[in-house]
């Protein structure tokens, strides 16, 4: 009994430091990454609690207060701290609700693109040569089209809406995951632990997804983080071109498109939605850089 407990004690003492703690220690070294994470957390909270936080519903119109400037400008009202848009809607409320859309877009697009990209990538990595070649050529074809153009054309086929824009962006982002996963799988596939698992009788699927895949996750996680920002940017660009979320949706890119004609009269309707996009994307990219440095020492920018 005492033998057993001392043996456990020894294993604990010798246990390697937990990978999560290791990761956190490396991550928090990077001030920018931590800052990005804080901003991202704020953005997340705003997105979740948007209905509570926003003073008005995003589509509430105040017809006596069209294009009210922000509070620090002449004519600003405390009622509308960042002013109102041409239809008399409160900018703050719309921007807060916009966070919801952006976060939702990022989350759904990245989940879909990562899931399909990783599954196809693992299959390509293990597939016989001919199947691997076919899969990779298909990915090459998708990547031959500039992403925004491909997304535009897909939306033209599917019809302009937020959902279709998301589908299009996911399709455009997914080949990157396929390439990344395949490359990682191929370099892991011939390692000893895989052979060991095979000798121990593990089935093909188990080897693919339980043995090999977890060891390929680092670059995939980094790519997912960076794709989150690409998804937000591309969705905003599609919204701006009128091919994404449709008015009166308070999506940041769509808000910019609606505000465009007032650019000379009311700088605030143009400035704030774009600033929100920039800050969110910047925060995610900072975090992504930190993730990469912490998770993947090989890719470290040093």
């Amino acid at each position, binding site marked *: 009994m005492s033998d057993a407990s001392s043996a456990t004690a020894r294993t604990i003492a010798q246990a390697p430091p937990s990978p999560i703690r290791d990761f956190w220690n490396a991550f928090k070294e990077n001030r920018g990454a931590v800052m990005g994470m804080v901003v991202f957390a704020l953005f997340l909270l705003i997105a979740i609690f948007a209905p509570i936080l926003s003073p008005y519903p995003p589509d509430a119109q105040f017809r006596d207060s069209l294009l009210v400037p922000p509070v620090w400008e002449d004519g600003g009202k405390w009622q509308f701290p960042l002013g109102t848009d041409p239809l008399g809607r409160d900018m703050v409320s719309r921007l807060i609700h916009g966070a919801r859309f952006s976060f939702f877009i990022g989350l759904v697009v990245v989940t879909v693109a990562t899931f399909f990209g990783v599954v196809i990538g693992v299959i390509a990595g293990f597939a016989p040569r001919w199947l691997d070649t076919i899969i990779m050529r298909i990915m090459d074809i998708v990547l031959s*089209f500039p992403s925004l153009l491909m997304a535009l054309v897909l939306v033209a086929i599917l019809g302009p809406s937020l959902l279709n824009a998301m589908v299009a962006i996911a399709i455009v982002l997914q080949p990157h995951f396929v390439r990344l996963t395949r490359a990682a799988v191929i370099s892991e596939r011939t390692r000893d632990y895989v052979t060991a698992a095979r000798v121990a009788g593990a089935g093909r699927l188990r080897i693919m997804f339980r043995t090999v895949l977890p060891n390929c996750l680092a670059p995939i996680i980094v790519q997912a983080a960076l794709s989150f920002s690409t998804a937000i940017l591309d969705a905003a*660009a599609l919204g701006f071109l009128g091919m994404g979320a449709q008015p009166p949706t308070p999506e940041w890119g769509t808000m910019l498109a609606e505000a465009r004609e007032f*650019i000379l009269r009311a700088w605030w309707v143009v400035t704030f939605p774009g600033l929100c996009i*920039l800050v969110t994307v910047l925060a995610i990219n900072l975090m992504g850089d930190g993730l990469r440095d912490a998770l993947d020492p090989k890719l470290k*920018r040093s």
Partner: protein
Amino acid sequence: MLRFVLSRLLTFVPTFFGVTLVSFAFIRLLPGDPITLLAGERGISQERYDELAAQLGFDQPLWMQYFDYLAGIFQGDLGVSFVTKRPVLDEFMALFPATLELSICAITLAVLIGIPAGVIAAVNRGKFFDQALMTTALIGYSMPIFWWALLLIIVFSSGLGWTPVSGRMSLMFFIEGPTGFMTIDALLSGQEGAFKSAVSHLILPTIVLATIPLAIIARQTRSAMLEVLGEDYVRTARAKGLAPLRVNGFHALRNALIPVVTVIGLSVGTLLAGAILTETIFSWPGIGKWMVDSIFRRDYQAVQGGLLIIAVIVMIVNLTVDILYGAINPKIRNR
């Protein structure tokens, strides 16, 4: 080397056919009947419908249609725009110089600022200058360029009145020249002030389009330089007592440039995607704006043709970069 080039060319061929298949599929994937779509919202009589169907080959089986389409491509026939009734290829070629001119200016600006910025950041690694530059680069990399363009217009066009808001040339001038590059044609035309007008129209779109490639190039140059600066031959050069500028500029940068050149080549796709937004905002009469307009006008023949040409341009550039990279780097070539 020849084997390497051939193998790259061999992967080019299936991708090319795949791309033609995608652009072929585009019109057929649109919801609804392609001919009714092509005819637009006015509707169409039955005789005209049959005539169009026969003319466009839509009465043939799908595989025949595809072969006709392919045969057309190899003869430079990408169909006729339904809105302007002109051949799609002619339309594209008429607008392409505008995009090319803008892209060349943008990539030049990105290289001229991005590479020195990356080198300076790497040499001053960890110092204030490095951090400031890399923060700026990350902001540039995260920039929604359509918003950036609007901000620049607010400040420089409407605020300070320094630059025009849109277009390529002031309406006072009529320039039609041999090159299609407005700056060069303006110079050749000899009209006073035309060149200045062309340049002033170029400034803001160039800055906007250069922003993201500039950020990517600066970041890539910095990390490539950092890698090279740790190499033995750089240390040796330094130990020999060579001037820092010579070591950094000559020994290190030359070797760090290989990945940077790759990134520059691969940013053609980014440029063309950026051109869609930049040209739309500045009413720049290039292919990016043309594609967006065509989508809105439901000119699907034009969209189909543009899609194909743009993809082929991207593919050719990527292939060239790939081969050049293999030519410089034997490790890649012999893999």
